[in-house]
């Protein structure tokens, strides 16, 4: 079986066995799109349970990695700021570039974690429905396939839909980025969870018809204001600038 995504730019240089979850010996993928779908056979109950256990382990290990990674990054940021509050000014462009790439990687890990959580949740559902192989297996699978196939847990953060919102004010775009990329040195809003922000923007899209709007930010929403001196404060609103397809930009603001 040829991996249909083998030529994708992000796949080049990666394992050619990704289509089978890196286990091409034990897993069969008849069309290259969904190896778990081929498990929907007579032994689906057992296979699904094993799959669920595997997914659970994956989620656990990614959570561990993420916690460690995020802690390390935060520690470095705080240490640098403590010893050199003017580091935004002092760090050369190359270092900023490396820092930005690390932040991007952190965002990727978070998205991956979300995907695994979703997979784990659905494996639980599958195991429950098929538990003990009670009832007609075919009917159970019919019930599962619909919602699983139609479910989209992660919002694609496309530039065409969200404009500059996440490129300038997104998770991981810290003081370095807000200085160099937005071009403005004033206090700058930053989303701390791009998926939460994307859902907020989508959820308020009906309010965008009248032009730019400031919407009160829900309490506890993951966002902050990065002040020019490196300190943080809490935003009160999220400002959105509508485009025909979504927003040109959106950011947390303190009014």
């Amino acid at each position, binding site marked *: 079986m040829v991996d249909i995504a083998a030529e994708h730019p992000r796949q080049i240089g990666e394992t050619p066995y990704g289509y089978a979850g890196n286990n091409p010996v034990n897993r069969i993928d008849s069309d290259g799109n969904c190896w778990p779908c081929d498990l929907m056979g007579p032994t689906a109950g057992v296979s699904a349970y094993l799959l669920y256990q595997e997914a659970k382990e994956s989620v656990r290990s990614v959570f561990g990695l993420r916690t460690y990674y995020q802690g390390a990054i935060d520690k470095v940021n705080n240490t640098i700021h403590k010893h050199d509050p003017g580091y935004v000014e002092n760090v050369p462009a190359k270092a900023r570039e490396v820092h930005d790439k690390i932040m991007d990687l952190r965002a990727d890990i978070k998205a991956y974690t979300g995907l695994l959580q979703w997979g784990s949740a659905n494996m639980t559902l599958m195991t429950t429905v098929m538990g003990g192989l009670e009832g007609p297996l075919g009917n159970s699978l019919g019930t599962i396939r619909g919602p699983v196939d139609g479910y989209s847990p992660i919002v694609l953060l496309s530039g065409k839909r969200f*404009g500059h919102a996440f490129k300038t004010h997104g998770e991981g775009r810290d003081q370095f980025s807000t200085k160099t990329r937005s071009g403005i040195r004033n206090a700058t809003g930053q989303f701390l969870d791009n998926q939460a922000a994307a859902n907020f923007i989508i959820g308020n899209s009906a309010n965008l018809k009248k032009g730019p709007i400031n919407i009160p930010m829900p309490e506890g929403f993951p966002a902050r204001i990065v002040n020019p001196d490196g300190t943080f404060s809490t935003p009160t609103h999220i400002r959105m600038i509508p485009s025909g397809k979504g927003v*040109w930009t959106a950011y947390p603001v303190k009014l």
Partner: protein
Amino acid sequence: MYITTKTIIKMNALLGFSWEGFEQDWAIEFADLNRVEEFILVAQTQSLTSEEKFAIISLILASYDRLLDSTEEVENHLWPQIAQLLDDNFEISNDLLQYWAQWEDERDDNLFAITPMIREYLAKRT
């Protein structure tokens, strides 16, 4: 290079923008696809400081991006003027150009409308 509040206030007066004071993405928020030529003219004819040039070039790029985004049929007579402006102010514009080039992005749906032109411009300079 960045846009200070002082620069924003001056540019607002020059261009007739109504600014409330809390806007963070000045160039993106005031970009206007119908005023690209006028913004270019201001950059070409007004006596501006480096910061003010940076601000007007930010505004021109954001406005031209919006113009490209609005239609597939764009009169490209504006681009040579913009490219000349970038040539004349390359040091000032470089950070902006790197931002709009979006080098780290590969997905077409994640690129700005102006991104391919910026990438081509930068490639020609190297």
